[in-house]
């Protein structure tokens, strides 16, 4: 009888070389001798991943198409100390922009206005109401290839995440930050034909939204954090959780993230000295979106220079600044912000913030952008590069964190105020 479990290593290696990363993970679960042929990091829990939407970003055509993905994306496990970039064939994301990533799902949007959830490993897809189904004044129908349609794809939704209607309910819900008026909009996949925009929100721009302990939370540019209430009886509205931290610093971007059951707020500070406004036509010499051959020096529009982290004190209902997250690492960007314990994922560094570039306003229509990625050490306030790519290679479209976090629903006990 053939015993495949004792096939010579060389032959097992030849077979495994022909497998995609997804098949390789399954290959490693067949038996222990097959498992020993696969990299260690594939064996444990599978997060976090960084999805690099375009691995051939240097071609001029790609540069112009800007923010949409290739049909083959790069995928790096940050549990892998070698940070090997695997190719993942994913035709479902081709010509689409990734505008969100949470709970194992990517949210993708097309210039034809279509929005979908996509699981990159199973490649399951779920259709969401399109951009044209937002209560708004969008021209209908949008034509593919139309510059305005491309603009809407890139600009209309800042970020979208997946959660549930309530802690008791299994009914899934997608919450999006709409750029037009920086309000939250929501829909129930498979149920709603239209998006519902949260009414009565006059608190300014939403920077981030997460699903935490059975509720959606959002942070405004002012530093106010709100919880979305009333989802179960279809009258969603914002309830104030806590006022802004008592500090004079004014960050460019704000995030909310859960860490060890606590709610954190993160301030992200950018050096915008190199930022060139694409609408500024006064000085054409500074315009970086030109059709040259890419040999000019890089002019990068911005970079992260510092982060501050605040912990919500439930008793006092105020924010306490902290520079010690213990073994936790935070992951910020176009994803639903998440954290993990680095004792469980030794490939990552504790007390650190892993960030990707979601400052779209700065690089929209620029040749170079989405380069602002790194690891911020909260203890000594230094930034290390996230991945090493050649300087001339474009980082567009922005890389996105992806997690198959089994604990993402958090505890079921609800925060009450």
């Amino acid at each position: 009888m053939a015993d495949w479990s004792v096939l010579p290593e060389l032959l097992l290696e030849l077979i495994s070389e022909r497998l995609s990363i997804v098949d390789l993970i399954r290959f490693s679960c067949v038996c222990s001798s097959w498992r020993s042929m696969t990299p260690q990091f594939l064996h444990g829990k599978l997060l976090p991943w960084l999805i690099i939407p375009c691995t051939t970003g240097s071609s001029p055509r790609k540069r112009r198409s800007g923010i949409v993905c290739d049909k083959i994306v790069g995928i790096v496990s940050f549990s892998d100390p070698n940070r090997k970039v695997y190719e993942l064939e994913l035709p479902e994301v081709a010509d689409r922009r990734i505008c969100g990533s949470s709970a194992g799902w990517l949210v993708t949007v097309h210039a034809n206005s279509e929005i979908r959830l996509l699981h990159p490993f199973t490649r399951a897809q779920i259709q969401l109401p399109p951009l044209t189904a937002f209560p708004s004044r969008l021209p209908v129908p949008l034509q593919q290839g139309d510059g305005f349609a491309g603009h809407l794809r890139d600009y209309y939704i800042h970020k979208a995440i997946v959660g549930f209607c309530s802690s008791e309910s299994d009914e899934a819900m997608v919450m999006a930050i709409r750029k037009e008026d920086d309000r939250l909009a929501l829909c129930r996949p498979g149920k709603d034909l239209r998006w519902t925009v949260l009414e009565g929100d006059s608190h300014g721009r939403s920077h981030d939204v997460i699903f935490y302990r059975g509720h959606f939370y959002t942070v405004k540019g002012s530093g106010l954090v709100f919880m979305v209430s009333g989802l179960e009886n279809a009258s969603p509205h914002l309830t104030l959780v806590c006022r802004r931290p008592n500090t004079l610093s004014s960050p460019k971007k704000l995030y909310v993230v859960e860490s060890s059951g606590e709610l954190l707020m993160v301030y992200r500070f950018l050096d915008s000295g190199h930022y060139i406004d694409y609408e500024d036509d006064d000085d054409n010499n500074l315009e970086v979106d030109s059709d040259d051959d890419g040999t000019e020096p890089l002019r990068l529009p911005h970079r992260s220079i510092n982060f501050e982290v605040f912990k919500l004190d439930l008793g006092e209902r105020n924010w306490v600044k902290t520079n010690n997250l213990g073994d936790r690492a935070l992951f910020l960007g176009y994803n639903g912000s998440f954290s993990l314990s680095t004792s469980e994922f030794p490939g990552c560094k504790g007390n650190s913030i892993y960030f990707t570039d979601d400052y779209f306003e700065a690089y929209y229509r620029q040749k170079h952008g989405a380069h602002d990625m790194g690891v911020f050490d909260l203890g000594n306030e230094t930034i290390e590069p996230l991945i090493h790519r050649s300087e001339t290679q474009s980082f567009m479209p922005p890389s996105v964190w992806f997690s198959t976090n089994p604990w993402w629903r958090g505890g079921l006990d609800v925060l009450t105020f």
Partner: protein
Amino acid sequence: MSSTKIFLKSSDDKTFEIDETAARASETLKNIIDGGCLDGVIPLPNVSSNILPKVIEYCKKHGGDNGSSKKIANGGVDKDKEILPDYDEEEDKREKVRVDELKKWEEEYMDFDQQVLYDLMLAANYLHIKGLLDLTVEKAASMIRGRTPDQIRENFNINSDFTPEEEEEMILIEDEWDDEWAFD
């Protein structure tokens, strides 16, 4: 064209005849032939009489022509040809027919169960027949792609030897992927 005959002896002491040109598809046999140590019969203690005729069949098809199997492995005709100035359209057509015919032959040739695949892969490896090794490795990979660990075990008749704790962790990972929730 006549060719020198070579005799191969299987692990169970059965002797098979093969043309020298065909035998040269195997690096191992080629080295033995060229080494001049040919003593009538070449013993192959690692290949049984069940699988040796199958190996010989492959060698006959590819004998002395390692290039053609390589082209198949690369998925067809070499594209670079098209830019050569003395490119011959007729020749290219004939080549295409030949490649198509070979592909069809390989498809029929490779129609067997995992037991034969296992033995053939080991034989191809032992005899250093690159084209045959590529074919068998690719077939094994195709029996893994897009399948769950359970389906793969079934395909290859493998029993899991993980501890219950390890099993549980893996099931969690699989469930995570398959977790599509109740969206309706």
